[in-house]
């Protein structure tokens, strides 16, 4: 019985988790309004075709730091607060402000900002959780906010206080909010379909009045004023630069709603797009709570797209599926589970737990890989295109290395490395995703798949392997210092692993760095420019080379190697994130405020581990056992 359990338990556990993952793939069924289908509509945002679902998720991430909206956040989880999908939120944002503006969708963390805006603290009776507020709640104190914001915007980002950062962040959130409110209709429209019809009807008279006014002739003042009122409103909508939601029509490319509305009078005659009409009909139906009408307007719009934009439609659908799958989040959950199992396996030395952990890592790795490849296909790019995807790829590479180590050593160490780094990097990616669209278009100089596939991938593999070596070294110190499990054989095998991985890291970081130089030579005519990111990569190469030479010269032994490998973590983290924070040079993309705090914390923790590693052997639990 026990034997059967030992044999069957690991694959069984994997099977359960795989079922859990597949269950999450099911698209939620819409009850009345077809919001899921609405989310599959393609639009153009950030220069690429995206489904509204992605616009919704990315916007909600930016405004609320979550991909769903809890409309009753003051309720505890067991009181069943109402949670709605990002697309339902977006549909109401764009077309039904009367309802949406009461939802507590805007997150404010800073207590000073909460009190400045005279917002309620956490109080279930007042329907407030002290963190999330609605647009309407903010309105009374908006003037106060604007005054503070004006002051803060003049200040350099680097010298702002936490409170001032919160103001700047809030400003971004409110801008995005305003943008989306004006993406389909003027935000203050009471009955948009009726207003659109009225505008359409007055176009000829309005154009005539405007032309007469321009020519200095007699004109109808009432018509002129009303017409200019419309034009200014639409101009305002377009100037906010919301997503381009109207599909190409004839000679016109993707357009913003505001621009499309302005096109009508320009085109000499009444020529409102069918797309404009369909969106207006949806808006009317949503405001009047008529699901049937909404769904039929949605179908009209879809049939337009099926005829003219089959590719965009297919791409949008594929991306919605990807969003729904959340491969990296799900893989992260499984890595945590696997990591715990592997750690336990060290203590009772149960090979069943270790095997279960490996099976789970394999599953998570498959999901991770599917996500990585799916992203590549969606983008038509090699795996690493920005900081976000570098985190995903470093994790992927490290997990692969960890699995290979586990295959050879079968001692649970590779499993802990794989699940540990997999988890940490995916958490980092998760936080980087809060910055907005993670599949942004590549700037002109980066628009080359060849160099992205060679230089960037090689450098990133170099990062991943340096982290693996560092993580192995951390395991050495933790187990040696605090447990008795680091016997001589384990210690030696860990050191051998570290050495092997450092060799691997040297190769990839060197080749990657030099390829970067060659790319620079190809695009700017200089091989090496001492740019901060180049220097960061160079330091990794030099550090790895230094470790190898120290080892070859016998200047360091097992523990020296371990300490050096931990410092490799510091060097790599510096190159990955630190140099971006200097805010100078060609690679200074993706600076994040919070990241700085974490980087400092990480560096300090690593230095702490090195300090531990330098303590004399008698203070190490494992060495005491060995000596005894």
């Amino acid at each position, binding site marked *: 019985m026990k034997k059967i359990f030992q044999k069957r338990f690991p694959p069984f556990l994997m099977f359960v988790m795989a079922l859990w993952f597949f269950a999450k793939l099911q698209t939620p069924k819409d009850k009345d309004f077809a919001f899921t289908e609405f989310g599959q509509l393609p639009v*153009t*945002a*950030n*220069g*690429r075709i995206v489904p509204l679902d992605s616009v919704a998720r990315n916007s909600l991430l930016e405004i609320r730091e979550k991909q769903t909206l809890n409309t009753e956040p003051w309720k505890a989880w067991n009181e069943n607060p109402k949670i709605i999908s990002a697309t339902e939120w977006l549909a109401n944002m764009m077309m039904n402000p009367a309802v949406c503006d009461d939802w507590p969708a805007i997150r404010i963390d800073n207590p000073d900002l909460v009190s400045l805006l005279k917002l309620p603290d956490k109080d279930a009776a007042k329907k407030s959780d002290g963190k999330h507020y609605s647009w309407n709640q903010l309105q009374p104190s908006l003037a106060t906010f604007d005054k503070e914001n004006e002051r803060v915007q003049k200040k350099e980002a680097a010298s702002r206080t936490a409170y001032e950062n919160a103001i700047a962040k809030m400003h971004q959130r409110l801008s995005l909010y305003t943008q989306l409110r004006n993406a389909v209709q003027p935000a203050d429209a009471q009955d948009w379909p009726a207003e659109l019809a009225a505008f359409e009807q007055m176009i000829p008279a309005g154009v005539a009045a405007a032309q007469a006014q321009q020519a200095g002739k007699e004109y109808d003042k009432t018509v002129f004023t009303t017409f200019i009122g419309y034009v200014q409103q639409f101009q305002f909508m377009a100037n906010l*630069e919301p*997503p*381009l939601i109207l599909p190409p029509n004839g000679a016109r*490319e*993707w357009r*913003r709603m505001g621009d499309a509305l302005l096109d009508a009078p320009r085109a000499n005659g009444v020529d409102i797009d069918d797309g404009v009409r369909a969106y207006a009909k949806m808006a009317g139906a949503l405001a009047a709570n008529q699901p049937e009408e909404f769904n039929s307007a949605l179908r009209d719009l879809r049939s337009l797209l099926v005829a003219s934009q089959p590719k965009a439609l297919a791409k949008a659908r594929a991306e919605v599926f990807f969003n729904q799958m959340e491969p990296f989040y799900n893989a992260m959950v499984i890595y945590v589970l696997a990591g715990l199992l592997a750690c336990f396996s060290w203590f009772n030395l149960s090979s069943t737990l270790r095997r279960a952990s490996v099976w789970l890592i394999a599953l998570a790795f498959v999901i991770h890989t599917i996500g990585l490849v799916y992203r590549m296909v969606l983008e038509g790019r090699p795996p690493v295109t920005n900081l976000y995807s570098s985190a995903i790829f470093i994790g992927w590479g490290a997990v692969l290395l960890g699995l290979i180590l586990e295959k*050879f*050593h079968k001692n649970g160490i590779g499993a802990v490395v794989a699940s540990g780094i997999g988890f940490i990097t995916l958490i980092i990616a998760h936080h980087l995703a809060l910055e907005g669209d993670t599949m942004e*278009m590549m*700037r*002109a*100089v980066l*628009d*080359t798949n060849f*160099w992205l596939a060679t230089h960037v991938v090689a450098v990133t593999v170099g990062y991943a392997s340096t982290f693996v070596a560092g993580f192995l070294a951390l395991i050495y110190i933790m187990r040696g210092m605090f447990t008795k499990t680091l016997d001589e054989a384990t210690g030696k095998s860990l050191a*051998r692993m570290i050495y*092997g991985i450092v*060799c*691997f890291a*040297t*190769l990839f970081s*060197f*080749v990657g760095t*030099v*390829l970067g*130089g*060659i*790319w620079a*030579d*190809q*695009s*700017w*005519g*200089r*091989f*090496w*420019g*001492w*740019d*901060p990111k180049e*220097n*960061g990569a*160079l*330091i990794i190469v*030099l550090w790895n*080379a*230094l470790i190898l*030479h120290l080892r*070859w*010269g016998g*200047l360091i032994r097992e523990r020296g190697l371990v300490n050096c490998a931990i410092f490799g973590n510091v060097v790599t983290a510096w190159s990955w994130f630190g*140099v971006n924070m*200097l805010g*100078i*040079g060609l690679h200074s993309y993706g600076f994040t405020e919070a990241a700085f705090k974490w980087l400092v914390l990480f560096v300090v923790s690593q230095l702490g581990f090195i300090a531990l590693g330098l303590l004399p052997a008698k203070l190490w639990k494992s060495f005491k056992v060995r000596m005894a």
Partner: protein
Amino acid sequence: MKKIVEFFTSLKLTVVLLAFAIVLVFIGTIAQADEGLYGAQAHYFKQWLVVGANFFGHKIPLLLPGGYLIGTLLLVNLVASHIYRFELSTKKLGIQLAHAGVIVLLVGQLSTDLLSRELQMHFNEGETRNYSDSATDYELIFLNGNEVTAIPEKLLRAGDQMKIESLPFTISVKQHWHNSDLNFRAPMMQNAPPLTTNGIAVNFDFLKVDNVKAMDQRNVPTVVVEFLTPSGSLGTWVASDWAGDATLVVAVRNGYAQMGAAMAQKIATQLAAPQTIDVGGKKFTFTLRPARVIHPFSLTLLKATHTTYPGTDIPKDFRSRVRIDNAQTGEKREVEISMNHPLRYGGYTYYQYQMDAGQVAEQAGRTPSSVLSVVRNPGWLTPYIGCAMVGIGLVIQFMFHLVGFVSKTKKK
């Protein structure tokens, strides 16, 4: 002798140099925030000995070997060890190949540093250029008919007097500013006397400013010189690189527009007008301008294209379509230069550098223009070779380790 050999071939030296290199690169990177890219390069990397450093806005006292010193010692260390420890065996093949690759890289970078030249070619659509300008070096030139005399800006030191054979006068340098700014002198409200009463100084004031730090900016030098002949002075003049600056001329014209188009045009023309001195019937026109390299062929900018992604300002593509006219070879062909696709021609490589085209230029009513970065680097192939050598060498070496390791594990 033996001790010297031991010292230069020792692994300890390698380790110490690598450690110094790491510290230097780190400090040199941080310092860029304070000193700018070029400043930091000169202070830390293109330097034998580094004295003092900037660290997050603080000055710290320190003495470090500079980039040149570390590079040279590493090179000596590598070459010496290579000769000393060389042995022909498959086991050592990988490691030796890798180190030879590093030597190639170091030598290549040294040669690049000594031999490479970085120039720029600026043109508007429709314009033809048969020369490139230096991005960093300037020269004071005197034109007498077709005869050109050029004096590098570096030689013009305030207080110096210079006599050049081809020029019938002595140049006395009164002021030299490596970077300068200029102000329009509004008539009627001048509160300081002009620098001199000749030429452009009548309408413009020039003043010294700090050297630029950012990579995409450049210094604009100005000198104040007096020309002396045995029969007396020809007056004091200002020669400045501002004078030829096309965008500045446009800005001046717009700035003076309120005084009437004719007047504005006149002032703008004064800035662009050549300044000439007359010596015994010979006319010398002089300007301070970027040092020039004349090519035996010419490039004509046919079209500058700047596209962005729909609905955004994210640049998608920069592209210059140019025509090469080479009278020597009879070539006359069109070619496209874009980001990541340079033109290699006549010993130089032409890269797309800056561009003013597309919507932005259109709305401002400017003629589309393009700047190509023009580089001559005889050592450009060394990184390719070096990288391949190190890559292959390390792969061979680690394969030995890996095969050994795997077979050992298998035996267990």
